[in-house]
């Protein structure tokens, strides 16, 4: 029955009881933690409104802010690079890594350490670097586990949420210790010791950016494990990779956004580490990288930006609350989506950022319950944007098959759409019936009259439910003579 890659993967997760259980427990935990943080509705609404207007204003001023950011960063001694596509970013990063290592032949081959960055997942950096013979080590505990397992993150904040203790213990036995043991504290210590060594030897550190302040040229990075600080201070070169939508105007914009981010994401009032990076090591300073590079990546973002309503998507601060609260995500897990960003936000980012065929299916894989929109700290109207992408999907079909004109270029058409002529016809007929009240009356009358003849099996519906049984007469009929 499942037809798309999404449905097939979702189906296997739904049948995995253990996975169902761990996702449900993890999401319930995160939901509860967030609720405790925002137990004052007024404070939540005020803060959310503030965060929303900060991000909205920053996006409206995006071209100017990016130029200001570039100038300030350069002023601070940070080198700025622009990348339009994942390929451009990957080539750039490879060149920067090679430049660092060639200036220090003793250090070759260069071990590269990476702090958690979803943008690097977006451009498939690890795979690209591996093809160039450059090993790149994930240093965030979750990402580290995912890398050992040769998988991709299943959640943007908790990348290894799909892994249980036994699976992690097995991975650590195979790759680190050689001995199986599943005490969580010991496992963490083992990883820490292993990573510590790698930090010391690394010549290049790669990180993401949570917020980039245009006014001061500051890169802000939040984390809980200290690996972000290690990755950005110990190696000789730090490469920060960021999407262009991360820029904000001023330092005063930062506190409300940080508060919204950490409270929404993990239910923490503040993360253990907040790194504010304002340049390479200066004269007399004892630590810090010698060179800092920033790569500003577009990868479809400017296309979203050009569309007045899709632009709202770019407010996202990547907290993951929408996936934690999503009844679909909490059942099918992050990998089913087949996209870098899973869950509700992934569904509205994927058609623009991804090339996979299954992205077309995703906007439809929602009951539109609105839980995502309700918890979004920057008020992204996710359900409304899902509807928009559904319209884009069917309109693309209609444009291709009905008018024989070219595909609209704005926004980027969704690929791999399987919506057929049949479906189009169904909705035309449906509309026609509902536009003719007498016809509607007659059709519903027939359904009630012949209800005994209705099929007992209705595809997937009756796998989980008895068939819907029409009443003996409609409300219209009952009220006709009143």
């Amino acid at each position, binding site marked *: 029955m499942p037809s798309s890659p999404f449905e097939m993967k979702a189906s296997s997760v739904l049948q995995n009881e253990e996975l169902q259980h761990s996702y449900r427990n993890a999401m319930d935990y995160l939901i509860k933690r967030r609720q405790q943080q925002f137990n004052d509705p007024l404070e939540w609404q005020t803060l959310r409104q503030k965060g929303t207007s900060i991000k909205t204003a920053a996006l409206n001023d995006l071209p100017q802010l990016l130029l200001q950011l570039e100038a300030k960063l350069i002023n601070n001694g940070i080198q700025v690079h622009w990348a339009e596509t994942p390929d451009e970013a990957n080539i750039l990063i490879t060149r920067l890594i090679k430049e660092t290592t060639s200036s220090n032949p003793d250090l070759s081959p260069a071990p590269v350490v990476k702090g958690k960055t979803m943008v690097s997942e977006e451009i498939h950096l690890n795979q690209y670097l591996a093809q160039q013979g450059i090993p790149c080590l994930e240093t965030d505990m979750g990402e580290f586990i995912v890398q050992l397992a040769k998988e991709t993150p299943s959640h943007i904040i908790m990348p290894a949420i799909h892994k249980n203790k036994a699976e992690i213990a097995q991975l650590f036995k195979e790759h680190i210790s050689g001995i199986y043991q599943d005490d969580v504290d010991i496992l963490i210590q083992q990883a820490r010791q292993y990573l510590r060594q790698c930090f010391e030897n690394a010549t290049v550190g790669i990180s993401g950016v949570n917020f980039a302040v245009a006014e001061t040229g500051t890169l802000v990075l939040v984390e809980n494990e200290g690996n972000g600080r290690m990755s950005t201070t110990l190696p000789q070169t730090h490469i920060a990779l960021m999407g262009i939508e991360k820029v904000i105007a001023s330092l005063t914009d930062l506190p409300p956004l940080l508060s919204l981010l950490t409270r929404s994401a993990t239910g923490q009032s503040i993360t253990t580490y907040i790194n504010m990076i304002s340049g390479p090591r200066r004269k007399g300073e004892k630590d810090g990288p010698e060179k800092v590079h920033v790569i500003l990546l577009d990868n479809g973002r400017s296309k979203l930006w050009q569309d007045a309503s899709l632009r709202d998507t770019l407010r996202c601060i990547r907290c993951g609350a929408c996936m934690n609260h999503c009844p679909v995500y909490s059942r*099918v897990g992050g990998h089913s989506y087949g996209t870098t960003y899973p869950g509700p936000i992934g569904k509205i980012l994927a058609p623009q950022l991804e090339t996979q065929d299954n992205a077309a299916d995703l906007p439809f894989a929602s009951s539109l319950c*609105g*839980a995502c929109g309700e918890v979004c700290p920057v008020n992204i109207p996710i359900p409304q944007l899902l509807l928009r992408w559904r319209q884009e999907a069917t309109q693309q079909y209609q444009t291709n098959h009905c008018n024989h004109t070219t595909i609209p270029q704005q926004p980027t058409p969704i690929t791999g759409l399987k919506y057929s002529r049949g479906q189009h016809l169904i909705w035309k007929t449906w509309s026609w019936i509902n536009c003719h009240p007498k016809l509607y009356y007659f059709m519903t009358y027939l359904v009630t009259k012949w209800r005994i003849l209705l099929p007992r099996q209705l595809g997937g519906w009756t796998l989980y439910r008895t068939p819907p049984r029409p009443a003996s007469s409609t409300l219209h009929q009952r009220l006709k003579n009143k």
Partner: protein
Amino acid sequence: MTTTEHVYLYGTCTIDLFFPEAGIDAITLLEQYNIKAHFPPEQTCCGQPAYTSGYPQQAQQVALTQIAAFPENWPIVVLSGSCAGMMKHHYTHLFPDNHPQSIQAHRFSQRIVEFSEFLYHHLKITLTDYGQPVHAALHTACSARREMDTLQCSQQLLSQLHNVSVVSPAHEEECCGFGGTFSVKFTEISGAMVNDKCKALEATNIQHLISTDCACLLNINGCLAKRQKTPLQGEHLASFLRQRCQPRKP
């Protein structure tokens, strides 16, 4: 002396076909409070199925049929949070400012009132409970909870019934998995959601499941019946209130 107030009743196509008694109950209940509910026979579907499936033009045609069906300037009481949400909040998306019918659609949207909202906010109803002590759960459809923000109205109404103990099943704020065509397109995911919803209901001691949305009930009732763990079947708030608030004849 109170004068009779006139309102329209929008029955919804789900109630029309599957829960017509909820429509009758709503009209009867309103009559008790001197409200004359008119049911224009020209009403059909609100257009939501086409709209959420990505066919706004088809939805727009159907929306125009509804707008024409309710000519008087009376409030339109809708027996579903989801259809009310469509007509109140999404008709404005269907008819943007530059559309010739945009003003008409906007005025129509402003007249939309969800049933529990009408009873609680507009009518400021005081209910008298004539029923036996029971336990009940309120399934608030996502549209009522998040789009129409009428959750409190139905909660408040139920709290007026002194013999009804309202129980909160686990994950009560979570969607039942209906979502219109979602339940047909993504049957396994929707099935898992409604199964969880039913498990949570079965774990309670309720005798009544009440909702302001019959589309959710179509989904939940079907699953409850398939699972056969309980004879429980959900009913519309209008039906429940009518049963409870009708004085027993001596």
